[in-house]
Structures are given as structure tokens and as C-alpha cells.
């Protein structure tokens, strides 16, 4: 900083362009080091952006993006009127809300409980076990669920039957899947989230805990009056960021669990799965990209809103 000031003064009248050129020259190696990443994001993220124009065309594969006839908002109108878009929005938002609320409550509870345990070995082992589901692919998750819930051979089906109950055919029963999917998501994400909250708890000033203990605070009181209030900023911020992504669905999880089982679409179809199927199965590129573009634009403003709120609460934590 200092050096730059001195340099500025020694040079008479540095214009913006000259300064820019000087900066480029001085940091050319650092710029070159960033070049691969810059090219990467240009090709894979920025180059497709003009292609969003497909959403406003009656896209025909052989005519390409720019040769297809322009139809204005017709694709969007169709999606609105048919009720397709509102169903997708409803499913996506409600699933995400359920994931956020159920997930965070359980993760927070587990992190706090583990923090009260003094047996390091127990903490280590259970943390490892709970983290394991995070490591496996959604393909395997779908097989695990099949193994448990399949009507003919599933483990749970057998348990229910041997207990004298009647097992519903879950793979034909749309009403059951919101519960199943929330549970599977909980199963997969609890270890991950617990680690995050556990780290946040470890960051709490231990002298507060010690003082409270000397004053005779018991376990509940320490959690209620120290741990929880100290975690509040972290919880609020993670919550806001999660809300920022409320239109983004976990494609892998939904697509592997439900796949092309149209009997379940009413309660399980989210934006991502619709976009994928509309393109890959029905080759309806225009409608697929209309839904995708809607998600991107609305999602973008939701993130901006969430970030503005974070900035108000904790400026250091804001994304930008």
C-alpha cells in the first residue's frame, strides 16, 4: 500500500488506463495463474448464458438455438396455465423448508448433546459413523432405500408383515414419499451438519462455561443460557443462506429415489427433476429451459435478499 502511494506521487498524473496497464504488468504472473480458472468459468458458465434465449423459442434441435422461431413468453405462459410451474415451485420450496427445519434442529441437537459427552472415544466413533452416509453416491442411497422399502423383499416390509401389519405398496403411493425423502435427506446430512455446529460450539469461549459451572449452572442451564445464545448468529446465518438456495433442489437424491416412476411425480417432482426429464426423455428443450431460467432468475434475487439480510446481521459473513 505504502509503496503504491509513493509510486503514485512520483509519477505525474496517472490516468485510469495507465494505472490499469501498470497493474496488469506488475501482476501479470498472478493474472496468468488465474487464467486457467478464468477460462474454465468462461467456457462452462458464461458461454452457455446467451443460450437461455431458448426459453423464448420453439426450439428445434436441428435448427440450433438461433435458428429456432422466437415465440416470446409462450413457453412460460404454458407452464403457468397448465399449473406445472406452481406444482414444481410448491414441491421444491416445501421440501427445502422441511430439509432446512428438520435438518438443522436435529444437527443442532446432536452437536449440543455430543458436546456434553465427556467420552472422547464415543464422540469420535459416532461422529465417524454419522458422517459415513455423506460419502456415498445417491445411486447407492436409492439401492439402500429399495433394500428397506421394496414391497416384495424389503426389510421393513418384512418386519411390518411379521408383526401382523399390512405393508402399503410404497413405490405406488405418492403420499408416503415426502416423509421418506425427508428422512433419507436427514440420514444423509446429519453427520455433515453436526460437524459444522460442533465446530461452532468448540469456538465458544470456554471461560464462560467454566464461570457458569462454578456458579453452579447445571447442564440444561448451560445449554439454555450459554450454548444456544452463542450459536444463534451461526444458526441464523446458515438458515438465511439455506433460504437463499430454496429454489435449488438436490437432483441426485430425488432422481435416484423416484426416477421415472410417474405415479409419484405429484408429491416428488421438483424443478431439477422436471428440467432433466423434459430435456432427456421428452426432448422438450424449450420448456425445460423456461423452467430452468425461471429458477435461475428468481433464485438469484432470493440469494441477493438473503445476503442483504446477512449483511445487516453480521457484515463479515456476507457473501459479497
Amino acid at each position: 500500500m505504502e509503496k503504491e502511494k509513493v509510486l503514485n506521487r512520483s509519477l505525474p498524473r496517472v490516468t485510469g488506463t495507465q494505472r490499469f496497464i501498470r497493474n496488469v504488468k506488475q501482476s501479470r504472473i498472478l493474472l496468468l495463474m488465474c487464467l486457467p480458472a478464468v477460462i474454465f468459468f468462461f467456457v462452462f458458465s458464461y458461454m452457455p448464458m446467451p443460450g437461455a434465449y431458448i426459453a423464448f423459442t420453439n426450439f428445434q434441435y436441428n435448427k440450433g438455438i438461433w435458428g429456432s422461431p422466437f415465440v416470446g413468453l409462450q413457453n412460460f405462459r404454458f407452464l403457468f396455465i397448465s399449473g406445472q410451474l406452481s406444482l414444481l415451485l410448491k414441491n421444491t420450496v416445501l421440501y427445502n423448508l422441511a430439509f432446512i427445519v428438520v435438518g438443522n434442529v436435529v444437527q443442532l441437537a446432536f452437536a449440543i448433546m455430543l458436546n456434553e459427552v465427556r467420552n472422547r472415544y464415543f464422540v469420535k466413533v459416532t461422529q465417524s459413523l454419522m458422517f459415513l452416509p455423506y460419502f456415498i453416491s445417491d445411486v447407492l442411497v436409492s439401492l439402500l432405500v429399495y433394500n428397506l422399502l421394496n414391497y416384495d423383499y424389503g426389510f421393513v416390509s418384512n418386519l411390518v408383515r411379521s408383526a401382523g401389519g399390512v405393508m402399503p405398496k410404497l413405490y405406488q403411493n405418492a403420499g408416503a414419499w415426502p416423509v421418506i425423502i425427508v428422512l433419507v435427506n436427514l440420514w444423509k446430512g446429519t453427520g455433515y451438519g453436526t460437524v459444522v455446529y460442533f465446530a461452532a460450539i468448540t469456538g465458544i469461549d470456554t471461560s464462560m462455561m467454566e464461570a457458569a459451572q462454578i456458579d453452579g449452572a447445571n447442564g440444561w442451564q448451560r445449554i439454555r443460557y450459554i450454548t444456544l445464545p452463542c450459536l444463534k448468529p451461526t444458526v441464523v446465518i446458515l438458515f438465511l443462506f439455506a433460504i437463499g438456495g430454496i429454489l435449488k433442489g438436490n437432483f441426485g437424491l430425488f432422481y435416484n429415489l423416484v426416477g421415472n416412476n410417474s405415479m409419484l411425480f405429484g408429491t416428488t417432482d421438483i424443478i431439477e427433476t422436471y428440467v432433466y426429464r423434459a430435456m432427456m426423455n421428452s426432448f422438450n428443450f424449450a420448456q425445460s429451459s423456461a423452467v430452468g431460467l425461471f429458477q435461475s432468475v428468481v433464485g438469484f434475487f432470493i440469494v441477493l435478499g438473503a445476503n442483504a439480510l446477512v449483511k445487516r446481521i453480521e457484515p463479515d459473513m456476507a457473501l459479497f
Partner: protein
Amino acid sequence: MAGKNAAVPVNNHNRPTRVKIDRSDMVIRGITYVVVAIFSFFCIMPFWMIVASSFSSEAAIRRSGFTLWPAEVDTYSYYLLFRSPDQMIGAYLVTIGLTLVGTLIGLFIISMTGYALQRPDFPFRNGIMFYIYFTSLFSAGLVPFYLLITQTLNLRDSYLAILLPLLMSPWLIVLMKNFTKAIPHAITESGKIDGANDFTIYLRLILPSMKPALATVGLFLALSYWNEWYYSSLFLTSKTTYRPLQFHLYNVINKVASLKNSVAGSNVIIENLPGETLKMATAVIATGPIILLYPFVQKYFVSGLTVGAVKG
């Protein structure tokens, strides 16, 4: 932060001060042991069920379903898979190749970029960071991306269509940048005084001192390559003979034809194929390595999360 001790954060306040333990502490601990132990059990139980089912005979499964212990131990589906291992070996080679190459290239670019972007004397750091970060806020969506890969870059049925998109993500670059911040700027300065250029400083001085960061980011990358099935399902058609492992598993689970192909050449009539156990055995072979490696790599993930997760 990323040292060995931080790997599994264990809180150790009140260790020296043995204040009296009152009843509510005991209750909390009791509940914790029970609840956490049960949940942990449910976290590994399904894995065990897959293994147990894969060693069961097909007849036993048709009779009494999937069980925690095979009613009749039978390794027929493993026998089938190993007798015509062509598909499986091909899938393994493709996945290992993609994982190694992708992780190495990705790590190199991510660490180089992450280092440059945290240099306080780099005037373009904020601009480039925003350029990269913006892509995670707004995207064109799946269709334009699909057309880019299949039409503009013409990568259908090419492994590059899987290798390239997974190389890096804004999140991994931010994570790396946060890690690199912990390296004192004085190291860079000392290199400068010795007359080294920025790339040499990165290669000779910075890279060797960021092993924990490389391990963490490298493992995130390796995991995304190992578990990859999504780009494969988009860009690999039936023309591609050898698919990545998880996509192979996906096909075996979801398509009867692929199930048959997976043991092609074993001269078994389709009706006699042990469909259920074959799926389970394929899953065990495809996922085995990651489960076996898991205990050794898990701590790097934990340390990565504590550095990068809160400020994604």
C-alpha cells in the same frame, strides 16, 4: 486450524475443574448416549444389509426378503461378476483414471487460483473472485449447458464431458482461498526478496506448506469424481462401452438390459439371473473402496468443513 488436533473437534472445557455433576447433566448424557448410538446404528445398518444381501442366495431373498443375516450364504452373484469381469474392470479403470487425472489437475488449478486470489498485493483479486463467484449465483440452466457440451464442444460420449465440468467449483476455490490465508504473507515476501517470481513462490514455497488444504480439497474432488453418475447420464450414450462405476451401478439397478450385460458372456438365461443379489453385489464392489478408505480420509473432510462450511 487444519492440524491433526482440529480434525475431530472435541471440546474439553471443565476437564481440570471437576465441578460436581448434578442430575440434569447425567440425564443429558444418558439421553445423548442412547439417541446418538441408535442414530449411528441406523447410519451403518443399511450398508450392512447390502453386504448381507449380496452374500445371500436369490432363492432365500425371494422367499423371505432382505434380512440382516443371509438365510443361505451364496456367492453365486460374485461368481458371475468375477467370471465375466469385463464391465466391472472397465468401469473401475474409467473411474480410477477420471478420479486421478481430475483430482490432480483440479487441485493444481484450484490451489494456484486460491493462492493468487488471497494475495493482498494483487489488484485484480476482488474482480476475479466476483467473476468466479457470480457463476454460483446465476446460471443459464441445464439446457444451454447440455447444448454447449454436445453441440459446441462436441463432447458426447467423451470422458472429457465428465472430467472437465467437475474440475473445480466456486465453493472449492473459496475454501482453498480461506485455507491459504493462514499462510503468513512473510513467506511470499521472503520469496520476492530472493528474486523469485509469483509462480515459483507458489510452487516452491506455498504448495509444500499447504498440505492439509490440498488433502481436504483433493478429497472433495476425488469424492465427486468417484461418485459421479450425473454427467455420465447426460453425456454418455450406449455407444460408450465402459461407464464410470456409479453410472454402471445406476444402470444395473434401473435397467434389466444392463443387468444382463453386466454378466454378458456367462451364458446364464435371463430368467435364471439372480437379479436382486446381483444388484447388491455390484453395489458392494462399486462402493467398497470408498468405505474402506473412509476411516483414513474422514478427518480431512471434517477439518475442511470447519474451515470452509460456515462461510461457504
